[in-house]
């Protein structure tokens, strides 16, 4: 089984959500995002959490997940 198939199978089993595509989008770097819960679907974004929330509400999502796409995406040891 190749690596991609193994990864797909693993994701299917665990329900893992990938944020790789979101983080790679340059427009989102340093911005606040409102995401549909349990998905990587963006329902709003902006320079402030309020802007992201407003867009989400306009799209009918009242309880999005608020996050920020970091400028620096290096691995971290806290």
């Amino acid at each position: 089984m190749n690596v991609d198939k193994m990864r797909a199978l693993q994701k299917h089993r665990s329900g893992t959500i990938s944020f790789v595509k979101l983080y790679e989008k340059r427009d989102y770097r340093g911005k606040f995002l409102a995401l549909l819960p349990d998905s990587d679907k963006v329902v709003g974004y902006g320079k402030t959490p309020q802007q992201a929330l407003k867009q989400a509400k306009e799209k009918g999502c009242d309880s999005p997940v608020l996050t920020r796409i970091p400028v620096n995406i290096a691995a971290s040891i806290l």
Partner: protein
Amino acid sequence: MKQIILPYLEFPTQDPVTKEKGVLYRPVIRIYLSFEKRGYNFFALIDSGADYCLFPAWIATALGHRLEKGQERTFNGVGGSIKAYLHTTFIQIQDYQFRCDCFYSRHISDYAYGLLGQVGLFSYFREIRLDYEHKQITIIIPATTPPSSRN
């Protein structure tokens, strides 16, 4: 025995020097934080190495906490020391809500999520299993812990 099973989330990384790209799995979960009349969903990393729960300052602002009005405290980490401010906040994970002394810091303002540490998450749920092989988090609910809604 009740338990909450949640998946790890997948994040990209890039070495700031070599620019080499990679992918990491982290035990990051969705939580609901609330203070007075405001409450929102955020992400948080289950961090057994953190003594307390720590969140970026932008989350304090979103919740309506006046950051620097909180009690100031300094924490040490591998990268040095950071200043943070204490604000009591309600944390909810699925049906389980608890009051927590959370700290908020500008030093981690670039973070996408907060950290759930020993005092708060682990003291409330007592047993949390991180299964990296299966990318699965299991939170064991103590029999004495009643579910509570966010209202």
